[in-house]
């Protein structure tokens, strides 16, 4: 029997395999993300999370589903979008797991794979933000709200009118966004950065792609298997 077969308790479908590899790629960009393997399923993350009541999969279950090899449920969950990234879970985790950063990685993966409903709120907000940033270099909040609600729910914009008027009355809304002076070079920096990915090592992903269960992100196992 091959050594991988002993350590790997389950076999994954091709689709699941692809998702798993992409997820591990995202994870490798997070310093110390291999701590994910040391989860003891204590539930401190879920207990600390202020929004876990609104989630379909609790933060503790996020880790266990990853172990069980069910990336697809994770990417389709409401959990990854409802996370407010307050970092309470990550701060309290007794195993030093980067829970919030892992959820960020799932968010990016879901966007990369286009897994979200059309005109999905979080995605639309981020996209509108990026659009304004790229053309001004600075954010203009009223414009962000207008772009965002035009994409998701234009009628909602009317409900913001009373608040908007109060803000205008107190001189808290500027009509024109301020622009940075060196916009040309700023856009050059963005253009160049878009060509890059976060740095990561491809080697590890090769071994980990079929692995589910406790050995899933284990550098030590990787080294041992290489020696043999």
């Amino acid at each position, binding site marked *: 029997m091959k050594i991988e077969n002993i350590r790997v308790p389950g076999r994954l479908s091709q689709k699941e395999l692809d998702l798993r590899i992409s997820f591990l790629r995202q994870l490798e960009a997070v310093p110390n993300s291999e701590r994910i393997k040391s989860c003891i399923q204590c539930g401190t993350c879920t207990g600390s999370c202020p929004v876990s009541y609104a989630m379909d999969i609790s933060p503790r279950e996020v880790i266990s589903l990853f172990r069980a090899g069910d990336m697809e449920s994770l990417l389709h969950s409401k959990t990854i979008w409802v996370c407010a*990234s307050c970092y309470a879970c990550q701060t309290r985790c007794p195993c030093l797991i980067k829970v919030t950063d892992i959820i960020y990685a799932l968010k990016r993966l879901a966007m990369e794979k286009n897994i979200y409903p059309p005109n999905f709120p979080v995605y639309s907000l981020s996209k509108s933000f990026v659009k304004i940033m790229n053309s001004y270099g600075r954010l203009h909040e009223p414009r962000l709200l207008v772009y965002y609600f035009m994409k998701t729910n234009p009628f909602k914009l009317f409900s913001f009118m009373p608040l908007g008027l109060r803000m205008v009355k107190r001189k808290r809304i500027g009509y024109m966004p301020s622009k940075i002076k060196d916009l040309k070079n700023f856009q050059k920096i963005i253009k160049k*950065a878009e060509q890059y990915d976060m740095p990561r090592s491809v080697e590890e992903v090769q071994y980990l792609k079929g692995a589910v269960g406790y050995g899933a992100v284990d550098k030590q196992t990787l080294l041992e298997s290489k020696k043999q």
Partner: protein
Amino acid sequence: MDYTYFPGCSLESAHCGYNDSVKKVFSHLGCNLHELEDWNCCGATAYMSVKEIVGFAIAARNLAIAEKQKWDLVAPCSSCYTILAKTHRHMKELPELKDRVNKCLMEGGLSYNLNVKVRHPLDVLINDVGIDKIREKTKFTLEGLKIANYYGCQIVRPEKGFDDREEPVTMDNLFSAIGAANVYYPMKVKCCGGMLMTTYEDVALKLSKEIIECAVNNGANCIVTTCPLCQMNLEAYQDEINNTYNTNYKMPIFFFTQILGLAFGFTDKELGIDKNLTEGIKINGALMHQ
């Protein structure tokens, strides 16, 4: 003392009161703020969830410009503070990321060599200026003010910064030094919902309501915060909270520099308190808003 100052987008428009009050308080204490030249938006969390490396690159542009000015970089907005500090930390931990980001910055004729210290104004006031000097410069003691100190998430987490992550005390110390009372406030580092207010409003309203409710129940007559987004959620959506939960909260939400400015003898106009949406409270009879 000299510092490079990074106001950030929201302090330029919707939270100009924070901007004004930080500048007033710092100059009163003899600290010079030099605005970062041609700064750009830090990218906030939105960019980080679309394409991470672009987020790092645009945040690093600010750091690269700040590096030329040699002073510590002061960022009052919690989001800017945390993103700039995170960019610095990640570039330090991942040398390969530093190389790539620097290649991007080269396109704009810049480079960043990890020589900038990102600071929060609260950190500067407590650790550089010191409580003794602040007490010395105080003209009015703020007796009668019962403050709920709300720190929010981003200045205390995820990494250990200048204060404790579960039980921060810097703001409490600051205000007890100028004669205000701090109420017992266990919600001080709970999340207000942040950007969820635009995406999952029901969730964010519940979180914000709990923060105001706790302050009311503990006898506070104002909430003081360090974060523009928290201030916005707690203040501008208070009517919405009242409508949703059948409550009748009228809790004024101040920035910590606004309260400090009042103690130093600045008027509410100078500190931008007249721009707050909720009604102010009387302090010593003379210092009041509206």
